[in-house]
């Protein structure tokens, strides 16, 4: 992997050059070859070829610490603008905010989400040495921000010093927006009150209060609830504030801060290249590594210090309970309070409703995520901290939290928390399927003691970390890489299915591979033993390692028989090992409460872990009883609609998370109901429910996410209303709804809808902000800046009418493995020609390319300039005949068949799995679903793959096209809808860019990065949490989309093209003959269907022109 320095430098210079070249927003016209967003070979090599931090720092073992702080000047920066000059900052009024403190931060620079900012600095001769890099930043929330963490690539002198520096994560801080502080004068002495937790009629409260210097401070936190008493997710908002960041590892393997070796000389550069999000940087400093700011002592030393200072357990100190569901700040919007009713001892808990009583579960388990809690103590002295938690996910393992503190003597001077001693990085929580209550400790049995002073506000941070397991997991990860390399090497020799009876002479050809097997077998076995020693138990978790080690050992020693025979087993074990690492890296745990107690409290400082038997059984029975009365439909409903208010029924067939997010958006302040006064009954239904419900007349008013095939199916049978061109089904009065703007006013406490604009309004009511309802034309957006691509609308149109508004849009893109292509020295193919040229190289190495043949047939026809239907522009006869018998379509079909028959593309394959092992370095498939799958399923190749637009085809006329097929899910209004205006208001609200973006971002916040939402709204896509380059790639593909309109009878097309394709591939039939044989069958079916719906038909051999205007 290591490359000569010169080559690496060259790579970087080239990659920088290409990056700068592709930096701007290049919008390619539909038919021109794009300035592709795919990575070049050099870029890919740069990703693959860098060293790790461990290797980097090993090279500077003898280097001295730097001397003196080196301040990087914001006057010598390029690629960033002053905050005062930035449009985005002006729009968001950043500098006028109180927390921005403009007085002290006048010189800060704004780094946009696509920026690459470079600071130039000089280093004196005696300053050469090792430094930490400290960045003071402000997380802004401009229009360009989303919920993602800020991510930057760091270059020193145009070179990423080590791979970890390629993904620095600058955290944002999230706080709930429902804490209120009241300050009152008082004569009381300084004191600290125990926090109070109360369930009141309108929600669940925490009251945090203390008296200091004659003033009483009382902060009230609230978790609000719906009409049935279920807690509702408190909204987390970004707290924009100044933060200090020391460059550190985001993967959790390296504790402490990165050290960088800085050479002397003038005009060195430090570059921060944006990966995600924008930020404001006040200063960057290079801090010599011997500075004591980050020197963390061992617990032994800390104890000795306690003794020397004569610290004693805090006598008479209060026992301070912190309920974990009220964090003061969290690192991520996905770390939020939730409900856990598995134990009656959880506080608060009721069997009637779902009260938020814990934090954690699945969303608070990734390295680096933390939750922070403020507390005060009433007496000086030593304290223990206990926790009531449940760690029931990782059997045979423990999870770790790094305990960091700020306030008083803890943390850095600017409030950045630090671990009080080394062992605090490894606070250990063992597995148990029941709830546990224990003092924080590192597993040695001795509870950590902390010294706290009265009157000081401390904040405790509980950060997910790998703790003491990090080294073991890292070793397994290295092993996995090595074994994977070996696997690919053998694969290149033997192919997918090695012949176990053949002698491949592995010992002569690749003795190093066999040796590596033995080394890794021993390594895994060692790791396993150390695991058992550390955890004290042998769970199924470590057995995995043992099993794999056994296999490797056999393959390495008995190579004659066992290598070839066990290749497929090895492959599945590689997958298992990847999953193992994934699981080990997460640290799932549910936390109910923390207790800060004087260190001599003993049992008194621990909350009861499990309730007694009778309480438990009573709780279970009550829960069962109440489950009959829970109205799941009403989850999250905050107000009972007035009897006379407007109501609409909306159905959707997604998951419960999705429906709760919609519920939240509808009910939010400035949400739909707030704006229009229309109450929405949101129902989560299963997919097939719509049809029978429409049949029986019990259908909804609006259905969200109906597939375009069904939209047309329902439309031709009059089951959905057209939202444009709908004169046929609507009266003139009703039709006006879709072509006028409506505004909502509140008159005498009642919502009134009117077409009068606020500027002309003369009534007594007040206008509700943002309540303007758009016309259909406005929903589509301006012609030069549309909200939807043409393909998205095409597929919802029939006979001049549009049935519904596009909601989701999926389309195929190309995913590629950068490491594999870089190793083979191949560029990412941009056209099918290039792809086929690459194929021999892949096939020599027993690799292949994964494309689904059905979609390949479709997009190839359109790439080559064909069309699925004849007469696309004739309103009467569009869809009357299939155009598969045209020369272009037949050629495209033949081309695709040859890919599979002559070029041996696999017809059937497990894409994600083969992509992960590298056997299929290129796969083509739906961008969001494959992305989501790879993000959770193949974390070991994170950062090694990207996606870009499809390979394109050159057409006869020399133009170039990389069309992909758009699949649409739409929001539709059903026939029988009771309130057309309200339904229309809802539809256009729901599909608007803001709401779509909010929904997509909430999905990611709630479920994680694998919940990317494929909104059909082009403008919403810009606000979703894709990285800048991903966004660029998606937008590029969006420029080149088409859709196949589902005219009556269209279901028959794929059926017969599939038959023809399989005949060609299975039996070697001539592709063109096979397809033309089915053309008549297809046309007959279409003819029959059109007749059924009374549409104009064409006899075989008849052209539209032949029909002399008369009846058919």
């Amino acid at each position, binding site marked *: 992997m290591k490359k000569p320095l010169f080559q690496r430098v060259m790579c970087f210079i080239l990659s920088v050059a290409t990056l700068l070249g592709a930096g701007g927003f290049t919008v390619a016209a539909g038919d021109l070859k794009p300035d592709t967003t795919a990575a070049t070979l050099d870029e890919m090599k740069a990703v693959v070829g860098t060293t790790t931090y461990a290797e980097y720092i090993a090279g500077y073992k003898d280097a001295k610490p730097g001397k003196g702080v080196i301040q990087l000047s914001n006057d010598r920066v390029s690629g960033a603008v002053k905050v005062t000059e930035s449009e985005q900052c002006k729009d968001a009024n950043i500098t006028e905010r109180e927390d921005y403190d403009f007085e002290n931060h006048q010189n800060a620079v704004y780094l946009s989400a696509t920026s690459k900012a470079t600071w130039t600095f000089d280093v004196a001769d005696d300053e050469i040495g090792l430094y930490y890099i400290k960045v003071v930043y402000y997380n802004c929330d401009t229009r360009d921000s989303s919920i993602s963490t800020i991510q930057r690539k760091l270059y020193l002198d145009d070179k990423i010093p080590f791979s970890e520096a390629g993904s620095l994560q600058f955290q944002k801080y999230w706080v709930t927006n429902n804490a209120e502080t009241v300050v009152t004068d008082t004569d009381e002495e300084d004191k600290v009150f125990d926090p109070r937790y109360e369930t009141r009629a309108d929600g669940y409260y925490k009251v945090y209060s203390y008296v200091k210097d004659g003033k009483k401070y009382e902060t009230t936190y609230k978790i609000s609830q719906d009409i049935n008493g279920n807690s509702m997710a408190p909204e987390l908002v970004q707290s924009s504030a100044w933060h200090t960041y020391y460059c550190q590892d985001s993967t959790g393997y390296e504790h402490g801060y990165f050290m960088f070796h800085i050479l002397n000389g003038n005009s060195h550069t430090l570059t921060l290249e944006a990966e995600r999000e924008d930020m404001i940087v006040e200063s960057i400093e290079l801090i010599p590594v011997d500075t004591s700011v980050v020197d963390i002592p061992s617990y032994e030393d800390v104890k000795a210090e306690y003794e020397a200072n004569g610290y004693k357990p805090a006598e008479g100190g209060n026992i301070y309970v912190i309920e974990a569901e009220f964090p003061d700040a969290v690192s991520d919007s996905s770390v939020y309070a939730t409900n856990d009713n598995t134990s009656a001892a959880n506080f608060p808990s009721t069997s009637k409703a779902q009260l938020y009583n814990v934090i954690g579960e699945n969303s608070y388990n990734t390295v680096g995520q933390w939750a922070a809690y403020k507390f005060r103590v009433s007496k000086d002295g030593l304290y223990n901290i206990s926790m009531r938690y449940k760690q029931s996910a990782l059997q045979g393992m423990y999870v770790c939290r790094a305990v960091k503190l700020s306030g008083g003597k803890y943390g850095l001077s600017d409030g950045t928390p630090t671990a009080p001693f080394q062992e605090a990085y490894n606070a250990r929580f063992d597995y148990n399927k029941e709830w546990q209550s224990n003092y924080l400790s590192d597993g040695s049995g001795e509870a950590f003691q902390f010294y706290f002073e009265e009157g000081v506000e401390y904040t405790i941070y509980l950060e997910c970390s790998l703790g003491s397991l990090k080294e073991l997991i890292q070793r397994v990860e290295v092993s996995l890489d090595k074994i994977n390399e070996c696997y690919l090497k053998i694969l290149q020799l033997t192919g997918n299915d090695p012949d176990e009876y053949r002698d491949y002479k592995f010992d002569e050809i690749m003795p190093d591979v066999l040796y590596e097997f033995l080394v890794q077998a021993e390594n895994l076995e060692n790791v396993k033993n150390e695991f058992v020693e550390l955890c004290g138990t042998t769970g199924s978790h470590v057995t995995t390692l043992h099993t794999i080690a056994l296999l490797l050992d056999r393959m390495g020693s008995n190579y004659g028989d066992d290598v070839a025979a066990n290749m497929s087993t090895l492959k599945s074990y590689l997958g298992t090992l990847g999953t193992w690492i994934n699981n080990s890296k997460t640290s799932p745990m549910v936390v109910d409460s923390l207790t800060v107690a004087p260190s001599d409290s003993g049992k008194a400082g621990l909350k009861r872990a499990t309730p007694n038997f009778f309480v438990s059984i009573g709780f279970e029975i009550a829960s069962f009883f109440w489950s009959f009365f829970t109205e799941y439909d009403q989850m999250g409903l905050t107000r009972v609609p007035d009897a006379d208010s407007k109501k609409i029924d909306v159905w959707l067939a997604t998951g419960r998370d999705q429906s709760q997010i919609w519920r939240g958006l509808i009910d939010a302040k400035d949400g739909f109901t707030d704006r229009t006064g229309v109450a929405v009954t949101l129902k989560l239904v299963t997919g097939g429910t719509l049809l029978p419900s429409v049949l029986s007349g019990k259908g909804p008013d609006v259905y969200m996410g109906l597939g375009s095939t069904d939209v047309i199916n329902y439309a031709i*049978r009059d089951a959905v209303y057209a939202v444009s061109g709908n004169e046929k089904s609507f009266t003139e009065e009703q039709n006006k709804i879709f072509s006028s703007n409506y505004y909502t006013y509140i008159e005498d406490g009642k919502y009134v809808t009117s077409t009068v604009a606020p500027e002309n309004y003369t009534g007594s009511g007040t206008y509700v902000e943002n309540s303007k309802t758009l016309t259909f034309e406005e929903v589509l957006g301006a012609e030069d800046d549309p909200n939807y691509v043409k393909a998205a609308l095409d597929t919802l149109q029939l006979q001049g009418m549009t049935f519904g508004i596009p909601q989701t849009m999926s389309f195929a893109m190309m995913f590629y493995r950068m490491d594999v292509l870089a190793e083979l020295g191949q560029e990412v193919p941009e056209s099918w020609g290039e792809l086929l040229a690459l194929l021999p190289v892949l096939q020599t190495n027993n690799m292949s390319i994964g494309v689904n043949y059905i979609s390949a047939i479709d997009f190839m026809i359109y790439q080559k300039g064909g069309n699925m239907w004849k007469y696309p522009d004739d309103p009467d006869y569009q869809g009357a005949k299939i155009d598969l018998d045209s020369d272009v379509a037949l050629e495209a079909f033949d081309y695709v068949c040859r890919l599979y028959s002559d070029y041996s593309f696999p017809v*059937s394959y497990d894409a994600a799995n083969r992509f992960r092992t590298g056997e299929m370095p290129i796969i083509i498939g739906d961008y969001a679903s494959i992305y989501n799958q790879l993000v959770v399923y193949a974390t070991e190749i994170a950062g090694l793959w990207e996606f870009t637009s499809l390979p394109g085809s050159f057409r006869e006329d020399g133009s170039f096209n990389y069309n992909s097929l758009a699949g649409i899910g739409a929001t539709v209004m059903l026939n029988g809808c009771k309130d057309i205006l309200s339904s229309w208001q809802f539809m256009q609200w729901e599909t608007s860019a803001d709401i779509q973006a909010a929904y997509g971002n909430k999905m990611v916040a709630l479920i994680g990065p694998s919940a990317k939402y494929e909104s059909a709204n082009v403008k919403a896509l810009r606000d979703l949490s894709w990285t800048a380059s991903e966004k660029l790639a998606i937008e590029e593909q969006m420029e080149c989309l088409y859709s196949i309109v589902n005219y009556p009878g269209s279901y028959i097309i794929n*059926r017969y093209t599939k038959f023809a394709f*399989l005949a060609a591939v*299975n039996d070697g039939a001539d592709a063109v003959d096979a397809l033309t044989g089915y053309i008549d069958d297809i046309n007959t079916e279409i003819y029959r*269907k059109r007749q059924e719906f009374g549409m104009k038909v064409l006899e075989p051999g008849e052209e539209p022109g032949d029909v002399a205007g008369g009846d058919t």
Partner: protein
Amino acid sequence: MAQNNNAEISRPVKRSEVSKIRWTWEEMKNNKTAYFMLAPFFLLFIIFTILPVVLSMLLSFTDFNMLQMPPHWMGMSNFTRLFLGDDIFLLACQNTLIFAAVTGPVSYLLSLLIAWFINELPPKIRAVVTLIFYAPSISGQVYLIWKTLFSSDSYGWVNATMIDLGVISEPILWFENADYVMPLCIVVALWTSLGTAFLSFIAGFQTIDRSMYEAAAVDGIKNRWQELWYITLPTMRPQLMFGAVLAITNSFGFGAVVDALCGFPSVDYAAHTIMHHLNDYGGQRYEIGYASAIAVLLFIIMFSSNVIIKKALSKVGE
């Protein structure tokens, strides 16, 4: 007169003296408790079984499309189209008959033979073996194991093995190749067919009175075959009937498994049965009227084959 009346009443009423309807009515009145207790099931049976069948028969004469009411009366045109204008229906009929002809009798005989064989085993072993044979049909979608075995992927078990052995060089698309689809589906059908019928056979064997065999031996039964034919089978005629009905319904209604294995529709309609044709029109094309016509035909075919089987079974042991 009064005396006469009394005399009449006290005399038992003869069956032939009253009309059939009246007789039934009287009987129902006498047994009203039984009818009352029968009512809940009877109502459900009428609403959810009889009524849909009748409705479906009515709909088969219309162009009902699932969404638009009311449907139009079409007369016999659905049926004429079915026989004269729909090539694929004829293909589906052919497939169904092949399928039913192979799987029906074979699975029936197989069930019977295996049940007979198992019946001879000692009780403990019998329980275990019964479970082994019955397992495929209780484990729900276990037939999907065939999808793994015959996966089209080059990593599929059969493909991988055959590539290993050098029989083939490219993976065979088992369930997407018209040549293999039908035989594979028949094999899977047979594998899963040892279901309820098989159990009822075992139960049937258990109910036979042992003393009958002894009596038969005295009467001159020569061998086990005669024992089977003259005693065992006639005694368990109800179970045989039950098994036969199930075998027929299963072999005609075998659709879901094919869908799961081959996708819908199967390649080149190679395993397209009447059941699939019905789903195609009912589910995909929303032509419920036409689909009902298909269903009615399927109903008639199943019903008549049941009648035939009943006749055939009455000959057992004669």
